[in-house]
């Protein structure tokens, strides 16, 4: 049972780090030390959690000794555990990058407490098995990320933060209303309990509304079409370290949160919902990649690519076969590393060339050739070229879409891949290949603190690309848990309850079509209990 405590540390360590850093408000040196120790411990704890999940399968923990569904459950399935591990890695690398990038005035404004507070929110959101608790972690994440976004207190940052804050607050409110409806209908918000109760219930208009509110709320968080415009308006204003951690993690928490209810709670067997997801996935991919084409600021280009890449992850939800889920899980993990690395590289390009506007920089191939190589690793991976991690990620989702006969979606994914390559080449041509438009007054150096994390993340990308098999196997496991709710229910409520729920879901899948047509034809007749075997 001691293994279950592994679930606690990825949340408790950053909380304690944030709190201790705040205790030493005036002692910046102490804060730096505490922060770094916290990051190392967090990384170790998150790796430990993943190893435990690999060994024992899904694990769950009740806090405060309260029985489920009354206490708050934490559940780690393979997807959540992997995301926590990646968060640990990313926090550590961005922490190293921050040695140089985080200025003294940022530190005095509370960078370390806010940074670790945000990591707490992210890990909490990944691990919680309680829908209301998920809302709480979203709030933690939102408040701390707002603080991190305005940390320089410039006019530009304030503008970005307001756009970011207003839309995300709106999203959280939608989520809260959805939760209220769901609680009113079911009387529980524990996700495993909901997964147990919901299959036996008729899909009333109230439940349908709750599902749609969840979709809208998480669509804002994840940056899905058409609710993504806050993202490119804000991310490029953040400092480079903050931008990288935002780009890597925040939208992916939204994607993860979209996956949870639509795998555990609401069945997506019906044609209508699938059609909606397919449409959103395709549009997210297309609008993102075209948005990037007209930009010149490196991080704005990359911000639009976050959106288009999220479309690929959503393909998992649209196709919803086990292979598609595996592909989507693999995609999220690959994407977090690559995207954060590209944002860090934007910082390095700026340090080397003096600007992050492509029109005002250039000639870096001659002055910093190794930077060009380091840039190509995540850039080509993002575009999906073999043998890098992005190739396997794209291969898995496109393969899944072809097998499930979603030919249109597969075509869109391939075309968007080519356009992504074009966009990455644009950055490469402008920043590295072409001659610099301004004669540099002095030789610029890229600090070592920038290079270490970029090399680390690049090495991970290469490793996933060259030795893809264990990662694909792991993603398969993650996909299997996502399609099979009883696997998620069992650690919380025991095998018996899980088997019952499994029987309900199996019965329900047959009747899903019936309910679907029922809903369309005569609304839904609430109150009438559906007889399910």
């Amino acid at each position, binding site marked *: *049972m001691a293994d279950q405590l592994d679930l606690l540390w990825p949340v408790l360590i950053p909380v*304690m780090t944030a709190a201790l850093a705040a205790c030493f408000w005036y002692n910046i040196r102490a804060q730096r030390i505490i922060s770094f120790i916290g990051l190392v411990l967090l990384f170790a704890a998150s790796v430990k959690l993943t190893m435990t999940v690999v060994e024992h399968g899904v694990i769950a923990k009740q*806090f405060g000794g309260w029985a489920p569904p009354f206490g708050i459950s934490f559940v780690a399935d393979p997807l959540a555990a992997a995301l926590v591990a990646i968060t640990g890695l990313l926090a550590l690398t961005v922490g190293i990058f921050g040695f140089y990038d985080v200025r003294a005035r940022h530190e005095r404004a509370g960078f370390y407490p806010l940074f670790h507070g945000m990591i707490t929110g992210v890990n909490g959101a990944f691990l919680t098995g309680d829908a209301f608790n998920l809302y709480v972690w979203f709030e933690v994440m939102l408040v701390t990320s707002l603080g991190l976004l305005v940390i320089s207190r410039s006019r530009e940052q304030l503008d970005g933060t307001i756009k970011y804050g207003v839309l995300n607050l709106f999203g959280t409110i939608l989520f809260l209303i959805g939760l209220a409806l769901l609680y009113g209908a079911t009387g529980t918000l524990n996700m495993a309990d909901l997964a147990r109760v919901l299959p036996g219930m008729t899909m009333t208009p109230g439940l349908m509304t709750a599902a749609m509110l969840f979709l809208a709320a998480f669509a804002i968080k994840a940056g899905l079409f058409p609710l993504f415009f806050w993202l490119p308006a804000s991310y490029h204003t953040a400092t480079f370290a903050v931008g990288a951690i935002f780009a890597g993690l925040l939208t992916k928490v939204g994607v993860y949160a979209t996956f949870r209810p639509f795998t555990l709670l609401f069945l997506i067997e019906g044609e209508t919902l699938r059609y909606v997801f397919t449409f959103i996935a395709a549009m997210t991919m297309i609008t993102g990649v075209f948005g990037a084409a007209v930009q010149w600021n490196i991080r704005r280009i990359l911000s639009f690519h976050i959106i288009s890449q999220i479309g690929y992850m959503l393909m998992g939800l649209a196709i919803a076969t086990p292979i598609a889920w595996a592909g989507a899980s693999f995609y999220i993990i690959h994407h977090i590393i690559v995207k954060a690395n590209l944002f860090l590289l934007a910082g390095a390009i700026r340090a080397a060339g003096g600007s992050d506007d492509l029109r005002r920089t250039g000639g870096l191939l001659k002055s910093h050739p190794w930077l060009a190589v380091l840039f190509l690793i995540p850039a080509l991976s993002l575009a999906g070229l073999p043998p890098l991690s992005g190739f396997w990620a794209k291969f898995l989702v496109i393969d899944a879409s072809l097998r499930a006969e979603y030919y249109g979606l597969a075509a869109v994914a391939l075309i968007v891949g080519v356009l992504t390559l074009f966009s990455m080449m644009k950055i490469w041509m402008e920043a590295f290949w072409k001659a610099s438009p301004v004669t540099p007054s002095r030789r610029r150096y890229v600090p070592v603190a920038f290079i270490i994390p970029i090399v680390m993340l690049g090495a991970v990308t290469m490793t996933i690309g060259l030795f893809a098999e264990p990662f694909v196997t792991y993603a398969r496991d993650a996909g299997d848990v996502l399609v099979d709710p009883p696997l998620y229910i069992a650690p919380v409520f025991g095998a018996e309850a899980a088997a019952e729920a499994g029987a309900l879901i199996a019965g329900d899948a047959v009747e899903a079509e019936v309910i679907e047509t029922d809903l369309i034809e005569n609304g839904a007749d609430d109150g009438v209990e559906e007889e399910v075997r």
Partner: protein
Amino acid sequence: MRSIILVASTRIFFIAMVVVSLWILLRGHNEPGGGFIGGLMGAAAFATLAFAAGVDDARKMLRIHPAVLMGVGLVLAAVSGLPGVVLNGSYLQHQWLELDLGLFELKLGTTLVFDIGVYFVVIGGVLSFMFRLYEEEQG
């Protein structure tokens, strides 16, 4: 603009509000109250002081930076769950100690540590933006 009546009455109000907030904090476990509400009242006491006597006086009265108070509170709250890990293997499972003091029975629990932590976090959190808002208003 500084009103003499407000300044004079604030001294009494401040003490009264802090005492009441502590009382609400302590009665909290089985009756309405607790760290959150107590903390809000405590923050209101400091806010009143800042309003009447100026932010500098209020900051002096608080002695430590509000963010530090938040940090200390968060540490207390987080640590209060650890005894449960050691004794029951369950984080935040609170442990109770019952003392018979002759006249009455005193029940002390790790929940009290948690509540005091919350009390500090709320005071620190509210005051860290309240002070800044007042400072901007006063120029």
